[in-house]
């Protein structure tokens, strides 16, 4: 007897969980940049390239989540 059933892909739930970490990380990157710029406005140009590098490196994790969600879809 089936009491409750869930159909569809759990990949969406998995990706939701996987996006938490990068979400926090990206938030931290930009919050640090805003804070440092507020404290020392002329440092903005100096730190901006590092903001984008940091953003890209952190964001890669979320994007791996998207890619692998599709790659492993239906294999497990």
């Amino acid at each position, binding site marked *: 007897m089936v009491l409750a059933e869930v159909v569809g892909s759990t990949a969406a739930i998995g990706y939701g969980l996987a996006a938490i970490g990068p979400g926090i990380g990206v938030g931290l990157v930009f919050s640090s940049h805003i804070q440092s710029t507020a404290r020392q406005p002329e440092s903005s140009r100096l730190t901006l390239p590092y903001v984008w*590098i940091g953003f890209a490196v952190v964001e890669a994790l979320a994007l*791996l989540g*998207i*890619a692998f969600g599709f790659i492993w879809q239906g294999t497990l």
Partner: protein
Amino acid sequence: MVLAADVPFPPSVEDFFLPSIVPWGAHDSYWFTKITALVWLTSAILIVFFLTAYRKPQLVPTKSQWLAESIYGFVRNNISIEMIGPRGVRFAPYLTTLFCFILLNNFYGIVPFIQISPNSHIAFPAMLAIISYIVFISAGIRHHGFVKYFKMSLVPPAPWFILPLLIPIEFFSTFMVRPFSLAIRLFANMFAGHMLLLVFTLGGFAMLSANLWLLPVSIVSWLMTIALTFLEFLVIVLQAYVFTVLTASYVQGALAEGH
């Protein structure tokens, strides 16, 4: 309303594999598709544009010369020199080509009636990442010499007993994760962007075909598509910039003295 008859929803990976053009309509060989056409178009546009812009360089630049000079100047000053230092000028031509190629290829994602980026197929970002990988490793080897370069990038200044742990980590992060993450980042951004636009566009039609009273919701969904297209423009420029900046920072790491 005719369009809404049977819209496949939700969109899937299959939507990225466009029908074959040469041979026409074939299902087992895909020699030439819209994706191939777009990549050739990008190469043609870039070659023709930069050649004509620099054909007769003038002291007071023409419009196209101004555009070409500002793109090159931006990459040269704001990416190459800022990231790598004075030595970065040598890499500016490669980085400019990379930037323009990625930008234009990404940009097809939001051009009406084209609306798919070749970079949403892993093959193109992977190839670009491999080229960048070769560039930064060969730059390091040419600058330091083979042995010294690998010693410098693999062996951090640390006590000897921790080295068996650190060397594999350094190897993994520098020589394996870097090209992989470069390719995946660009690919996944373009892939997810296209998917997002598909969900909102096709979702509108799907709701409409389910019930005609959902028309207002469908219109909201299509308006969302327009808003997301602007977001997508931001992502397109950002990813072209990020790919170039990361390549520059890898080159900088390869040329740096010490660890």
